[in-house]
């Protein structure tokens, strides 16, 4: 069976041609997980296989799911000891939609506990490792999902972002990661982190797979009042139109990045030029303001969202919260305290409005904005613990899209001098996932991501 490195679209084709059965496909990935999971700690809980055949747009395709998505009957911990024994009695909307599309759950992937972090090191079940170099972090918080895709333990994975938690690990593990517009994919059943920021999204090995998964999980949900009624696009169809775009480049998103990263991103921009796209300089509010806004809003919402884990239910009490969660709860509770609300939370929301207006203004001039996804490539495990706000700084280039709610995608654009993947970020206008997927697809067709994804899983051939 020649399965290694096949995209979901290709696997669907093979299943259709009966090159192998659904059961064989599931067993193939299951075997890989059994072989490699101890190396990466990507999966926390494995689901049981089923014998039935699955119909639908993802019929028979195995998938990994971040452990903050409720899965009925399958343990869901958000990588926190507090929920160590929590078996949800219900499915998240994304879980339901994946199941209905015929995708088959392989298991639940490791993450930073409660999604608090950018390295998967705050997981109460141990860090995940970067398949490119197991001394390095896979990024986070969707680090388990990113590692699973990178080492081809799963063809597709579901991650979630609050600010960078899909794009940053996708960049560090060298895979495709899409953060949709806030409200595009319902949050119902996703263990809440920053409620006004959280976005579920796909992590895949091709842009088309990302589009395919997005078509499945996007759309209005009567269980989520913040989900959007805007109709879901035909992303796969739209992405294949040969469009010439105006691509915005902002100095503010090209500062303080490593030379290696800058080099690869500049080369990518040259490829866009060669493809006939127009490059246009734009001016954006410095992402350093997005960090401040993000930090305040997210901590406030975290302190509120974690209040329900008061020790009365779910078995484990509040002593099971890790350091990072405690820090965030305290900071958030402080910013919401009587007399401080106006100075912190309210002010942050006002600045957030300015950032939103800033992006809207720029998207009148350009179709997309391109930047690096991260200032540096994957860091060594242990780096994060030294700095309480390191994650925020690592995610600096992701936070503009997070606080404004616009969609953005990470695609690999080469390797750095240490042979680690470099990520390119394409940001788009509200609900215009089609355009960023279109450009990602064009880049993929042109470069095959410089074989980054292929090199990633070819290390784990057996």
């Amino acid at each position, binding site marked *: 069976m020649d399965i290694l490195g096949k995209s979901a679209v290709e696997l669907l084709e093979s299943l259709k041609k009966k090159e192998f059965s659904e059961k064989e496909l599931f067993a193939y990935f299951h075997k890989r997980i059994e072989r490699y999971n101890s190396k990466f700690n990507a999966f926390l809980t494995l689901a049981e296989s089923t014998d039935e055949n699955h119909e639908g747009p993802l019929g028979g395709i195995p998938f990994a799911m971040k452990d*903050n*998505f*409720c899965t009925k009957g399958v343990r*869901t911990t*958000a990588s926190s000891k507090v*929920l160590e024994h*929590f078996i*949800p*009695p*219900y499915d*998240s909307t994304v879980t339901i939609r994946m199941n209905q599309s015929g995708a088959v759950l392989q298991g639940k992937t490791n993450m930073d506990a409660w999604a608090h972090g950018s390295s998967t090191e705050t997981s109460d079940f141990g860090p995940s490792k970067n398949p490119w170099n197991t001394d390095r972090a896979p990024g986070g918080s969707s680090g388990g999902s990113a590692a699973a895709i990178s080492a081809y333990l799963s063809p597709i994975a579901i991650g979630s972002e609050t600010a960078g938690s899909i794009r940053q690990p996708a960049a560090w593990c060298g895979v495709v990661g899409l953060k949709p517009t806030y409200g595009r994919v319902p*949050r*119902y*059943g*996703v*263990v*809440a982190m*920053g*409620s*006004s920021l959280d976005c579920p999204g796909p992590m895949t090995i091709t842009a088309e797979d990302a589009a395919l998964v997005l078509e499945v999980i996007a759309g209005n949900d*009567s*269980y*989520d*009042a*913040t989900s959007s009624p805007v109709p879901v696009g035909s992303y796969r169809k739209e992405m294949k139109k040969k469009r010439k775009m105006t691509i915005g480049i902002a100095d503010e998103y090209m500062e303080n990045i490593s030379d290696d990263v800058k080099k690869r991103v500049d080369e990518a921009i040259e490829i866009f030029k060669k493809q006939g796209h127009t490059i246009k300089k734009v001016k954006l509010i410095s992402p350093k303001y997005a960090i401040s806004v993000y930090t305040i809003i997210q901590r*406030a*919402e975290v*302190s*509120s969202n*974690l*209040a*329900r*884990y*008061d020790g*009365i*239910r779910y078995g484990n009490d509040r002593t099971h919260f890790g350091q990072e969660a405690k820090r965030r709860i305290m900071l958030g*509770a402080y910013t*919401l*305290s*009587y007399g401080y*609300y106006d100075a912190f*939370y309210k002010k942050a929301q006002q600045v957030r409005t300015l950032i939103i207006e800033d992006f809207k203004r720029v998207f009148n001039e350009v179709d997309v904005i391109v930047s690096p996804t991260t200032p540096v490539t994957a860091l060594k495990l242990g780096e994060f613990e030294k700095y309480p706000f390191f994650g925020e700084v690592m995610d600096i280039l992701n936070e503009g899209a997070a606080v404004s709610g616009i969609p953005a995608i990470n695609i690999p654009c080469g390797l750095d001098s240490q042979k680690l993947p470099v990520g390119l970020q394409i940001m788009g206008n509200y609900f215009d996932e089609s355009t960023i997927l279109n450009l990602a697809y064009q880049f993929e067709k042109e470069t095959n991501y410089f074989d980054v994804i292929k090199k990633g899983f070819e290390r784990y051939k057996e």
Partner: protein
Amino acid sequence: MKQQYPVIGLEIHVELKTDSKMFCQCSADYFGKKPNTHVCPVCLGMPGALPVPNRQAIEWAILIGKALGCTINKISKFDRKHYFYPDLPKGYQISQYDEPFCVNGAVAIKEKTFRIHRVHLEEDTGKLIHGENKTLVDFNRSSVPLVEIVTEPDFHNSDDVRAFLEELQVIIRYLNVSDADMEKGSMRLEPNISLILNHDGSPDPELPKYKVEVKNINSFRYVKDAIEYELKRQAEILETGELPPQETRGYNETKGITYSQRSKEDAHDYRYFPEPDIPPIVFTEKQLEQIFESLPELPGEKIIRYKTQYKLRPQDAFIITRNRTTADYFEHVVHEFEKHRPVSNHEVEDIPQKVANYIINKKIPVDVSAEEFVRQALELMAPKQTDTKLLDEMIAKVVGANPKAVEDYNKGKQNSIMFLMGQVMKEMKGKADAQTVKNELIKILSK
């Protein structure tokens, strides 16, 4: 002369009788149901669950505000109010903080006006059931829609408080949005009480620097009793030159006393912030007007109309409008009478008052059809067949037994005839036509 001047404001919670709960699709009809059977991930506050507001509950909260003369905010939002308690599954209650649905209302009762500060919507909590050595939680009530009505501190005696609360209950029931049943807890009362010991008589004195909130009161009478008790208690403290501590007190109805529950030092910082799971709620003028369309004629308006249209006595108009069903029935019967025009030997204008009398005095049961009511009413109105032989006997007996009244009458004291009439009617056991009795009496007395 300086005198005591109570300053009282009210907080009233009313549970709405919507089909489903405030933020999920569970049945809101929890009373007497098996514990934890009307629950789902949302009202249990499970990880990942999200609230979706109940449109009906919002519309009803707005109707209550409108009925209380409030301005309805076109832009409103929900907020999270944080505190830890085992019956609060999310660690916060979804409520409304600084942009409630309704503000600045007023309710007029007997020449006085009481201002409404705000009316907002929130969710109820679960219920703790304390047993020996253990406490259980029932989440059936969790997230049942709850409207909070807050008045300005416009009450200065417990009678006004009671009158207001009774009127409020009538209004809520008119709107048909809640049972407003205090025994079932669907209407809950919390007076905030403070006292100015030496009031100089100025109409708008500075408010006292403390207030005492009394909770757990489940009847109008107990509210009055609790206020009276508190005013006495506070006066005693104030007389020593001290300020009563700002606190929350409970009411013990058996002992008729209030007791301290929570002092100011324990006051929560609720860390309010806008509920990120629910976008702001924005209404157009047209949408609001559509909601207002279901506002029925309110008891206050009905009283005025009944006095003018039906010429009812004010107190009867009041009684007949206390209950919307009774008022509707009254009008239905009056309308039914139209078919029987002209009503023999009665002025048509008399009919509504007569119907009101029959209803109020329970002469005719109100659970019969309007046709049946009219039939029975006509029977009651018909001149009574009087046994004239018996009447003559009884008049003779009464006249003989009451020489003083007879003498008074002959001296010109017309009222005496009424007394004598009453005596005769009593002897006749009511089986006589009043007019006939009067005529016969006069005839005999004039002899």
